[in-house]
């Protein structure tokens, strides 16, 4: 699996914040339970890091500053192919 393919499959898995954060919680619960073996722990940590990166990016996307648009402006931009 190339890096590109891997990234695409990862993206497909994290199709929403809620899915990502739910998976992240599962991972942390599993790790906290202390029942995961070494191999599983390392895999889960790797997956968890990717999820955190995704979630942080999603939060950043709604954290920089409120943008306000009017519907007709947005529609006009769409018509002009600007968006």
């Amino acid at each position, binding site marked *: 699996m190339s890096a590109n393919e891997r990234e695409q499959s990862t993206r497909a898995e994290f199709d929403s914040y809620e899915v990502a954060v739910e998976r992240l919680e599962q991972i*942390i619960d599993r790790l906290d339970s202390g029942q995961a073996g070494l191999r599983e722990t390392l895999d889960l940590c790797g997956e968890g890091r990717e999820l955190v990166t995704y979630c942080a990016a999603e939060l950043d996307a709604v954290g920089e500053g409120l943008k306000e648009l009017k519907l007709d402006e*947005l529609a006009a931009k769409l018509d002009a192919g600007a968006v």
Partner: protein
Amino acid sequence: MDGEAISQVEVAPRPGPDLPGPFGVGRYARKLQEEMRRRARVLLIGEVTGVGRSKVQAYFELRDGEGAVPCAIWLDDLEKAGLPAGGLRDGAEVVVAGGPDYYPGGGQASPSFSFRATHVRLAGEGDLLARLEALRKQLKAEGLFELQKQLARPLLPKTIGVVTAESGAARRDLLAGLERRGWRGTVVWAFAPVQDRHAAPAIAAAIQGLAAQPQVEAIVVTRGGGSLADLWAFCDETLCRTVAMLRVPVVSAVGHERDSTLIDDVAAVACSTPTHAAEAAVPLDCLAARGSLGRGVASLRRAAEGAIPARTPHLVALARGPARALRREQLALNQKTREIRAASERGIAERLGFQRRLASVVLERARRRAAGPELERRREALRQAAVALRAHEPERTLERGYALVEGADGEPVTSSADAVAAARVKLRFADGRVAATIDSEPPAADAEASERDSR
């Protein structure tokens, strides 16, 4: 030929269905009017549109989502109704009393059908509530209340659409609610009138316009409180059907808590205030989420960094496992050995003790058997020795009449010469001593004879 042709015309069957008539249309029109006027008089409720006036009448259509009836009221009757100025206007919700009527027209005048209203009043809260209830029942029966509620609402939308009045507290409150969530994404405003008769179609168009934007993930419809008549646009059947069928979740926050409009029923979520609507449109508290993500990162780091060290003691324990097992076996083995040895020693000792006890009993008996006469003999010898010894004691001799001569120092005087030399002696008898004086030199023979006689 001609006669034949005429008779053919006379006997030709009349085309079309076999029905009574034909009648003169004017006469029929009057009959129709009579029949219409005989129909029951009722109350109708609906929205007034297309108001017009002649010299004697006012005309308008009364309509709702399902249909319309053309109405007419004599200006006299309208005046008696006492509506407020401009009360009979487009968009007004009114209740009219009357029945159907038909104007047959005339040689020049066009015929027309209308509902002849004799009374009219503005619809009150009660009328609106009754209508709302009927609409609610109908839409619910059609399952339209469930459609929006089945839609998945994104936890963290990046873009939300908002339908509201351009000026108003609702807009400000919504922004404050979003800010409190820590959400600073994109808001697409679709402003619309929220109160007049143009409101419902404009709101429906705005919602559809927002839903058509692919980036809009949720739509908020909001306005402040008011009377049910003020909020009536949000009970519009067409608007509510539009919302119900939308594939983007709609959050409604119309009026205050006690107000219940039909859009609240069909929306995915109904909120009591614009602030709550902000929370429903962005279910994730972004501020809290940032904190919890931070904790998640810490957990992952701890797990990753601790993965090896946490297992080291276990690994060490595992490595020690075989040696420990061996030692455990060794200890168990030693214990067994000790037990066996102790058991066998105990057995031997018991046997030995028994033999020893047995031997001592046997020996004692033998010894007693052997020692019996010997002991008797020794006892006898001892008794005889004691008798012999007593015979030699001086006291025994004195008892038989002998006396012992002692010097002044108490020493025995054993010769006559010593006695003369001592001059004064003591004579010791068995029962005591007496002093004696030696008065002469002893004649050797006499002394011996007298000594023999005195014995």
